[in-house]
């Protein structure tokens, strides 16, 4: 080719094809290079594709932006910005210091059946916005949000106490639910994974691990997470079960200290903190899925009681350990979220005794994962029982339930929520939607904020 070609000589369709494979930050960056590419980068079709991709990855809740097909481009951009900053009415504006969180959409589920013991119930909205998992005293239920319909109910755990649960719904037709329970009578604990047929409500138990614990703790399970074939949960503070349910494999990690766990693409993130000690060590470690190849134990008989032979965490090769001792030795909880706009970037919130701190984790294709601290430790004044959203919002209980914002570090703000009837709340990771049980009307309520 003798004549010099310019990027702007390329047909719009080719540029659109390239944008279709880019993440949001790259499309925006390219759109800042020249007029031609600016016009193309802010074309409605490009943003429609970007938002559909966020939906596919369960970052964009389908109820949060329901009208994607009719939404103008600038409003789609605002919707993405809101995933990064949280609801607008959750932060004070310069002009309005008396602002109150404002509900933009309220969805109420289930009005017919009153469970036997409503008080010990809890509910979680899945990130896709498709389903609510509802743990009531008779077992775990899954409700379809759009159709207000009971999709599935697990009756097999009636005599058990469901302690933690989560689910993965990679598309509209597949739903994988993880249930962690302990029996009332004996010291048996179960970690089960079921694949639910959302049309018929039938399920297939794809994984079941049963074991015996030695002491009767109130809360045996914590931090249940599932992502693709990998699921993990922490047991009795210092142990962590990791399973590959498709291959029927498991491994139990034993840590010296209190442990929490998260899953991202290709890696398991394990945080350990030595509590009850002034200069206790605190660390976050990455374990690659591949590393576990040498450590898996196969499940021999489904449902048989297995004796754990735990592996010491220090014996497993880990990547990129981050020493967080200076900042968060008392923090037990960890949330890890993928950036909505940059692929391979994660935001890690760590919180516990009246404070929270965030880190940035980059997992590039070309090289080692990298950590850096995003914000210094922010004092919340109160213990944090709820998860933190991507945007750095969480809930604290002063006299009333309050939204706490850690986003602007210098001026972290608090806003009172309208009176809620319950504090059995779940806070959605990106939309900030609150899911709670309305005891008076025996329903599950989901509130999205403006």
């Amino acid at each position, binding site marked *: *080719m003798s004549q010099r070609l310019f990027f702007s000589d390329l047909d719009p369709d080719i540029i659109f094809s390239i944008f279709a494979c880019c993440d949001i930050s790259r499309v925006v960056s390219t759109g800042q*290079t020249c007029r031609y590419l600016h016009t193309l980068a802010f074309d409605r079709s490009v943003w429609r594709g970007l938002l559909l991709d966020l939906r596919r990855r369960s970052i964009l809740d389908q109820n949060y932006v329901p009208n994607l097909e009719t939404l103008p481009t600038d409003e789609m951009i605002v919707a993405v910005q809101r995933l990064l900053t949280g609801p607008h009415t959750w932060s004070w504006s310069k002009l309005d210091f008396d602002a109150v969180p404002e509900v933009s959409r309220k969805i109420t589920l289930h009005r017919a059946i009153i469970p036997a013991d409503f008080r010990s119930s809890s509910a979680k909205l899945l990130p896709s916005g498709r389903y609510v998992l509802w743990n009531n005293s008779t077992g775990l239920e899954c409700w379809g949000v759009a159709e207000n319909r009971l999709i599935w109910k697990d009756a097999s755990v009636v005599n058990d106490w469901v302690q933690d649960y989560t689910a993965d719904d990679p598309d509209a037709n597949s739903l994988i639910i993880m249930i962690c329970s302990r029996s009332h009578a004996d010291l048996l604990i179960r970690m089960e994974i079921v694949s639910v047929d959302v049309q018929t409500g039938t399920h297939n138990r794809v994984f079941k691990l049963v074991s015996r614990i030695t002491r009767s703790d109130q809360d045996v399970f914590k931090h249940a997470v599932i992502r693709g074939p990998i699921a993990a949960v922490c047991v009795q503070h210092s142990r962590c079960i990791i399973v590959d349910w498709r291959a029927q494999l498991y491994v139990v990690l034993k840590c010296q200290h209190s442990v929490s766990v998260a899953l991202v693409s290709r890696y398991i993130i394990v945080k350990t903190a030595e509590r009850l000690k002034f200069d206790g060590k605190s660390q976050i470690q990455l374990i690659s899925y591949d590393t576990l190849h040498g450590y898996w134990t196969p499940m021999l008989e489904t449902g048989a009681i297995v004796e754990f032979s735990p592996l010491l965490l220090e014996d497993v090769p880990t990547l990129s350990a981050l020493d967080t001792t200076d900042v968060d030795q008392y923090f037990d909880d960890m949330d890890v979220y993928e950036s909505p706009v940059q692929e391979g970037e994660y935001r890690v919130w760590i919180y516990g005794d009246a404070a929270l701190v965030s880190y940035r984790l*980059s997992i590039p294709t070309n090289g080692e994962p990298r950590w850096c601290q995003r914000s210094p430790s922010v004092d919340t004044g109160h213990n944090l029982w709820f998860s933190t959203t991507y945007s750095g919002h969480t809930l604290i209980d002063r006299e009333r339930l309050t939204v706490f914002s850690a986003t602007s570090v210098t001026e972290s703000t608090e806003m009172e929520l309208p009176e809620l009837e319950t504090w059995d709340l779940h806070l959605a990771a990106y939309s900030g939607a609150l899911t709670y049980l309305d005891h008076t009307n025996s329903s599950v309520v989901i509130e999205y904020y403006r």
Partner: protein
Amino acid sequence: MVLLVTSDNEQFQTEKDIVERSVLIKNMLEDVGESDQPIPLPNVSSSVLKKVTQPSTGPTEIDVRGRYLSTASTTVESPSRPPILEQSQDETRKRTTDISEWDQKFITVDQEMLFEIILAANYLDIKSLLCRRWLQDGSQHDQGARPPEEIRKLFNIVNDFTPEEEAQIKKENEWAEDR
């Protein structure tokens, strides 16, 4: 094996499952059925087709997402396969390739060949090749997207914004850096 004939009349014997990653060739193969008829590619030259289908041999190659890279500093997931067609289309958003020191080498690469490859990939309908790696992070940035100045340099883009417009656009789009 499938016989491909390029615009400059060179013939290429290529494995069927590899060329079928191209939607265009796949459809052509379906049309001709089980015959040994050669597939003509009048819009693709032999040098470009080599880049698109052959395993790394030369000083510069291109990875699964259409990124030039130096073979010396490259590890591709499965080296026995041509790196470019490694990946099926539904996997375009997954990242599997490990590249290092790519950036410095990239600047020295022939830009026209790059454009020819974009055009060929578009013609052959290989989505993975037309991919985001064009605009991806480089060694000079620890995190995030390549800034506009660098994208201009890499792709020969003329900045036709006025300084005021440029400042305005930069301000409007700062949020996407997601610090």
